[in-house]
């Protein structure tokens, strides 16, 4: 088990290094001088030159990459050109808001997705099943920015039940969490359904039925335990996905999170800030995948056995 976790962690390291390299190259081959581009005509040649030197933009690309990597490992992602503050501080200050959004969205998607998936599987091919599956397809097919606008229009503008946007308290989190959670609720519901259907076909379920257990008992006590494994593992990936996918939701609801930082970094062409924010989100996603894989092997002894065979 520990060996598996260790091996899995070791495999992620080259991926992470590769990603930092790709990201660094993409952001640093921007045609034109990034500093001049950002400051436009407001800055004199002297100022531009000084900022260039501060950012070591005249060093060779490889040197700059290595020092970027070294600094990043020490928690230093450079300084935002526009705000003149350390990128790490800006991200860490915004992160709790993004985390809160992602966690509440995840809660929405579990509270909706898991029961819907179970009901659909139990009542397979019924009207309810078709309705739920149609609904979850709708959730997946709707652009987030659009469903956000619809909810804003109905609940904030017309019914005036909730605030339109901003972030001054828990009630500001409700609409964003529903918007972001709904799209992944569809994914969870479908996975829950197919996983439960698969388990229900197995022999031990037939045994449970044969010994006279009621159907609810069969499902809650026997089937769900195994059917939930893939769902639980997808959750770790999902939370990470929500953290980075919050960009659009944060933009629409004006939530001061990491996603908003990313967008404002793009529009103000603040390269170090953009680089730091994207790197941060990507590391989260990789960590999420890592946790999911390890969780999977902890929860499912079959996976562990397979790992042992491969090793």
């Amino acid at each position, binding site marked *: 088990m520990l060996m598996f976790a260790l091996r899995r962690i070791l495999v992620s390291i080259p991926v992470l290094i590769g990603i930092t390299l790709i990201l660094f190259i*993409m952001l640093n081959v921007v045609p034109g001088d990034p500093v001049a581009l950002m400051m436009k005509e407001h800055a004199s040649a002297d100022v531009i030159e000084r900022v260039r030197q501060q950012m070591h933009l005249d060093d060779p690309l490889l040197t700059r990459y290595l020092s970027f990597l070294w600094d990043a490992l020490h928690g230093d992602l450079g300084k935002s050109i526009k705000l003149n503050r350390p990128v790490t501080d800006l991200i860490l200050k915004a992160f709790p808001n993004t985390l809160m959004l992602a966690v509440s969205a995840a809660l929405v998607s579990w509270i909706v997705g898991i029961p819907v998936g179970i009901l659909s599987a139990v009542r397979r091919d019924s009207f309810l099943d078709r309705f739920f599956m149609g609904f979850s397809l709708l959730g997946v097919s709707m*652009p987030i*920015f659009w469903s956000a606008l619809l909810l804003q229009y109905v609940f904030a503008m017309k019914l005036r039940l909730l605030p339109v946007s901003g972030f001054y308290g828990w009630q500001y989190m409700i609409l964003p969490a529903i918007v972001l959670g709904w799209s992944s609720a569809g994914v969870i519901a479908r996975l829950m359904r197919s996983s439960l259907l698969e388990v229900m076909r197995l022999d031990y379920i037939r045994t449970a039925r044969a010994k006279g257990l009621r159907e609810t008992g069969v499902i809650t006590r026997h089937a769900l335990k195994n059917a939930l494994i893939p769902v639980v593992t997808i959750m770790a990936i999902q939370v990470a996905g929500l953290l*980075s996918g919050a*960009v659009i939701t944060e933009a629409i609801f004006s939530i001061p999170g990491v996603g908003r930082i990313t967008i404002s970094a793009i529009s103000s062409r603040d390269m170090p800030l*953009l680089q730091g924010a*994207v790197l941060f989100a990507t590391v989260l996603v990789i960590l999420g*995948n890592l946790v999911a894989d390890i969780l999977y092997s902890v929860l499912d002894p079959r996976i562990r056995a397979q790992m042992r065979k491969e090793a």
Partner: protein
Amino acid sequence: MTSPSAPLPADAIEALEEASFLRDTVRAFRKNRMAMVGLAFVLLLVLGAVFAPWISPHDPYRVALDEQLLPASTTYWLGTDNFGRDVLTRILYGARISLVVGIVPSLISLMIGTMMGILSGYLGGRTDFVVMRLADMMIAFPSLLLAMVVMYTLGANLLNIFIALALVGWASVARVVRSQTLALREKEFIEAARANGTARITVMLRHIFPNVVPTLIVLFTLAIPEAIMWESSLSFLGVGVQPPEASWGLLVAKGKEYMFQAPAVAIAPGVAILLTVLAFNFIGDGLRDALDPSMKD
């Protein structure tokens, strides 16, 4: 590998088999009602997008400040936007961009992904290792952020959207194609071809590739709605298609400022995105069930 006593030449038998496979596929697809509805919608949309200038009596770019934000009427079926332009006409023209953005990057990522996947699966060894690690990285990169970074670096225009989306999409194609290639490589007919002394490139092109085509068709149809979604998100965030061009995501973004006075300006293009994405998903599901039932999860 026909027996010598068979009266038909090999290529004729092959043609027959292909025809029946195709016939079966078409029959299975046509039985799927949702897929047929999706197909009808997409055909209608394509016709609408191609013949937009002839269908619509309005100019999508003409500014008429005395006709701002009009409600729906017989002249303007969905009302007008903040520049007095007909919303329906803008959506119709937006369909051109959305369809092109759906199709072109999906094709590019399919081509790259197929090539990488076959090479990786068939050659194995170091090639496989390098290609798959590259794919791992691309998949670990959050798609929207990757696309945004590409747009930041290259600049916001249509061509760069193609590049960004192709870059986002190829890795998952490569993974699927690789696993299929791995399975195919063990089959007798591939072994036979190899024993014949067929060159590796020929085996890959003539024997492996045709066998992954059904999967590619399904991946292609399912990649289109995804690309449409990404483009509309990028355009909504302001790093995609730029005004005065009409892309659906951009139309929603511009319309959202007038949600109070004229909600249709933002809502209607969103409905267009939703219906198109649903339609392509239905077609993709139908094709998958018809072409390869084993891919059904």
